[in-house]
């Protein structure tokens, strides 16, 4: 566990000294909300539409972060460092997934507020606890799949092309569940809790892909 924490601390320090992924994801999210306002031709959204706008925006913002996740390792020899160190290689996966989770949480802190101000029709407060739960589960999905896809794509020729075309279909079930679970929270007639069916699907997705990615990550770091 300690190597993971050390690697995570390294990533957080890097992001604090030279902010790169978080500001980009944040600006991207807010710009996308503005684009949705003009693209949909609406001042306010509610219900399923609001849930879709929010979750799709966060998914695309996550793609930006996923693209950058291993760039430092690739360019500055971090992979060699991990391979040479007497630690489990999955420590890197755990650190990267945890880092991406934290990045996404920070981005959502601002992006959800911006969404509530710019686009959301009904008040966000009644549905907030449910929203935190859904977004936490969605972030786990984005983090584990994102860390794996990022490691898969980093040493290919077409890195920034491979990440979205692989990650988007792979994350479709998580997006379906998150968007459906969020919809009742933004209902114009008054928020109700997120349906347990969708929370269960999302949790199942997290569990299956978390374990699977943990199991196969080793094979991506061999040379």
């Amino acid at each position: 566990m300690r190597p993971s924490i050390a690697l995570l601390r390294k990533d957080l320090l890097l992001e604090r000294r030279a902010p790169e992924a978080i500001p980009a994801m944040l600006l991207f999210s807010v710009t996308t909300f503005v684009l949705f306002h003009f693209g949909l031709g609406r001042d306010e959204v509610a219900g399923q539409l609001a849930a879709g706008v929010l979750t799709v925006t966060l998914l695309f913002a996550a793609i930006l972060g996923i693209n950058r996740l291993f760039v430092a390792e690739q360019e500055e020899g971090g992979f060699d460092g991990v391979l040479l160190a007497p630690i489990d290689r999955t420590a890197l996966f755990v650190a990267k997934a945890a880092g991406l989770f934290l990045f996404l949480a920070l981005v959502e802190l601002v992006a959800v507020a911006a969404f509530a101000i710019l686009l959301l029709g009904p008040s966000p407060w009644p549905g907030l606890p449910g929203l935190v739960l859904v977004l936490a589960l969605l972030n786990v999905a984005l983090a584990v799949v994102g860390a794996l896809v990022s490691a898969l794509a980093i040493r290919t020729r077409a890195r920034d092309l491979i990440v979205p075309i692989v990650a988007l279909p792979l994350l479709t079930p998580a997006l379906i569940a998150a968007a459906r679970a969020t919809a009742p929270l933004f209902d114009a007639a008054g928020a109700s809790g997120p349906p347990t069916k969708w929370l269960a699907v999302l949790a199942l997705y997290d569990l299956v892909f978390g374990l699977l990615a943990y199991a196969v990550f080793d094979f991506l770091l061999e040379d």
Partner: protein
Amino acid sequence: MYGKGLRALSLATFAALTATFALVFFYAPLDADQGFIQKIFYVHVPVAIVTLCAYVLGAIFAALHLRTRDRRWDLRSYVVIHIALIFNILGLLTGAIWAKASWGHWWVWDEPTLVSFLIVFLLFATYQPLRFSIEDPERQARYASVFAIMAGAFVPLNFVAVRAATAYVHPRVLGTTNGGLPSQMALVFVLAIVAMALLFALLCCYEIAAKQTRWQLRALRRRLLGSDAVAPLGRSAAPSLGEPARGGSVTRAPRNPAEAAS
């Protein structure tokens, strides 16, 4: 010798397909609601079932490749996913035709099987670009196996999510007991699945045999004409395990007469 048993498998597939189509047209009863168009069911559903099973099979082969480090498993995984992708397109097209005929639209979103099928197709369509963008053959095989395992696990999970998201429109032929499928139809349907599975296996065997023959031919040309006479392979999405210094698992012809005699 490559392609052992291909002739027998070809004949069996031909017989099974002919028998299936004969029974579909002359034996299976007409559907009371949909009439003749319902007969596409005997192509569409078996193709879909074989496709999904093949994706899972590709994942199992990929796991075996990672476990044993035998590149032949990567070749099998590649070929299975390759043919399954073609079957997947066939399933999407027949599904669209059936949807147009029975519901009046080429595409129906509230139909979980078709939608999951599209998502699975979109995911597996990235398998070849991923392979193509990795040059080192060993790493290509390894990364492709990791992808195949994730994607294979994705197939059932995706079905759970999409099915939960949509109302039931699609006929549930296998879900309920006896499914409302008359015994005559069920018999033809089972035969159609067997025929499609045979066709799938046959195509896979052909592709593997063709690839191995091509590699052997290259190896022979290299030995006879010298390595300059054989142009190096370009970048490829396909596994290349017959090339020299890239895994010695392929059976090679003996190098000289003395070796052949021993």
